[in-house]
């Protein structure tokens, strides 16, 4: 299934998307397809798979730890693409790769997208690649038919938002707050404000998914009620993986259960 179809189906049902992030190769590459399986069984609509990087500047301590564990387990960008391919063979779920730009740049954008395409990857998110620097990247991604998911943030002006939407396909990734990734207890009131501010510009053009700090069912309920099309959860899963990394069954059960709890929060009965 493509990202677009997935959002379309959810929209028809009146529900939001649960987009779940894990780091490829954390804690071990062979566990990644099983963790992904648990996420999908729990109700994940779109899977985000990370490529580990030595210098993850947009990430808080939780996902920094995932980067280091994955690098220590010998995970390379190619390995993550292999894992993606395996996951796509097992599950009919849209899969996007999340990576900093340097691994793509080092491999070469053309070669990277060739390999991503072969691995049946549906889209790519690059948190340190703003649209101004995507002149080479965007046309290559387009030729390969992969979605380019760009980010917008609370500091994005409407002018920039328009420009970003032009470069974006699949969904627009709205960063919910000023800061780095990491679970937060409370949803900031400003997150709801920014969703409502951007919705008139995205509605009917591109699905809007909200990430950073989203970790609990009540966060998801609030942002879907505010009109967002999806919620992105990363650090909460990564934290569970880290905590239960020596007991795989407990890890998989826990992840399946938590994903289904989060998924329930995307379903709006009143819609």
């Amino acid at each position, binding site marked *: 299934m493509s990202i677009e179809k997935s959002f379309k189906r959810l929209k028809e049902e009146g529900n939001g998307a649960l987009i779940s992030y894990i780091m490829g190769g954390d804690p071990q590459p062979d566990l990644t397809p099983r963790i992904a399986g648990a996420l999908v069984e729990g109700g994940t609509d779109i899977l985000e798979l990370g490529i580990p990087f030595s210098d993850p500047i*947009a990430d808080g301590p939780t996902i920094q730890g995932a980067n280091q564990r994955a690098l220590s387990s010998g995970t390379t960008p190619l390995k993550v693409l292999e894992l993606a391919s395996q996951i796509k063979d097992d599950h009919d779920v849209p899969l996007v790769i999340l990576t900093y730009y*340097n691994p793509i740049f080092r491999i070469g954008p053309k070669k990277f997208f060739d390999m991503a395409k072969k691995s049946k990857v549906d889209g790519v998110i690059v948190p340190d690649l703003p649209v101004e620097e995507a002149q080479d990247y965007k046309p290559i991604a387009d030729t390969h038919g992969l979605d380019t998911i760009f980010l917008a943030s609370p500091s994005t002006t409407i002018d920039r938002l328009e420009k970003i939407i032009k470069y974006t396909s699949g969904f627009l990734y709205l960063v919910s707050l000023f800061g780095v990734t990491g679970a937060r207890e409370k949803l900031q009131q400003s997150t709801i404000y920014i969703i409502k501010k951007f919705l008139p510009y995205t509605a009917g053009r591109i699905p809007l998914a909200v990430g950073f700090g989203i970790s609990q069912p009540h966060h998801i309920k609030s942002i879907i009620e505010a009109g967002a099309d999806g919620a992105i959860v990363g650090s909460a899963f990564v934290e569970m993986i880290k905590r239960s990394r020596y007991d795989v069954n407990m890890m998989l059960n826990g992840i399946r259960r938590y994903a289904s709890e989060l998924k329930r929060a995307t379903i709006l009965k009143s819609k």
Partner: protein
Amino acid sequence: MKEFTNNPLDGKYGKYGGRFVPETLMSAVLELEKAYSSLKKDPDFKEELEYYLSEYAGRPTPLYFAKNLTEKVGGAKIYLKREDLLHGGAHKINNTMGQALMAKRMGKTRVIAETGAGQHGVATAIACAVLGLKAEIYMGKEDIERQKLNVFRMNLLNAKVHPVESGSMTLKDSINEALRDWVTNIQTTYYLIGSVVGPHPYPMIVRDFQSVIGREIKAQIMKKENGLPDALVACVGGGSNAMGTFYPFLNDPSVKLYGVEAAGHGIESGKHAASLCAGYEGVLHGMLTYFLQDEHGQICTTHSISAGLDYPGVGPEHSFLKAKGRAEYKSVTDDKAVEAFLELSKTEGIVPALEPSHSLAFAIELAGTMKKDDLIVLTLSGRGDKDVQVVADYLKVKV
């Protein structure tokens, strides 16, 4: 038309540079660019900066003819640009004073900075203290262990030092952590970066503030020798003292430019910090430039006896000058740098910092191949007091 112009289009020097930053930081770098382009033209700002540089920091610095060293080497005349005599003991204050004044005028109350050995941290703390700004410095836990005295010095200067425990716990991780702080606090916080690195407009701003070095050299050498130098030599960590030295001479093709990187235990050993000499193009810290990295794009940890050169990347304008063939980049090992450190201390009574000891080693070699009426200017970017213990340890001398 001049080949090298001042304002890069879209922050690009050829293909190098740019602003590869998370979207949240985009507004901050655009705000900074706007503020800088108006302050640059503001006579009041210029006057205030000049006031602090001359009355407080000690500019202009002398251009000293190193007669003893020149005679000993027996080649080109070697001049030393004495940035080591500045307040704080290094060229760093040219930049921190300029940026701290900008922060103040932009209405930012809190200044953050990264530091490796602590030199930029100290220079930031100094500038913030005198201007009444709050300074918070990110410093790798490994570096804190190695440079306890500089940590205390920053505390004396009323700055807060945050230990960085992520990644390799060194300079590159401190930059990562400063960027994470900035993304969280962009409304109140000014990020005062320490070299000609980072997203546009930082490489341009830092270069402009450091260009006072090259401008003074030009005026001083014209007066003393009635002509331009034949070669300029400077060490390259991130590349700020070198860029500041080179920039006013870019359009003087007769002046050869040499940047000297740290070869650590030797390039073959893999334990070095020579990004331009032995790295690959990559993207990190907001810029496209040369980085030491593996085949998968993971950034390497570096080694140099001089903490100030211990960075796995380099300012994008240097990558551009390398591509254009306008500057040449060399590397010098720990061993050769210490030799030069000892040499200058003995022959001229000047204890240089270990960073410019690298460029000094190359300058001595270069002078030997040149004619007696040729002129070399070496930028002595800092004094060596901070390195006395390191050199004693290296020589296995107990002090």
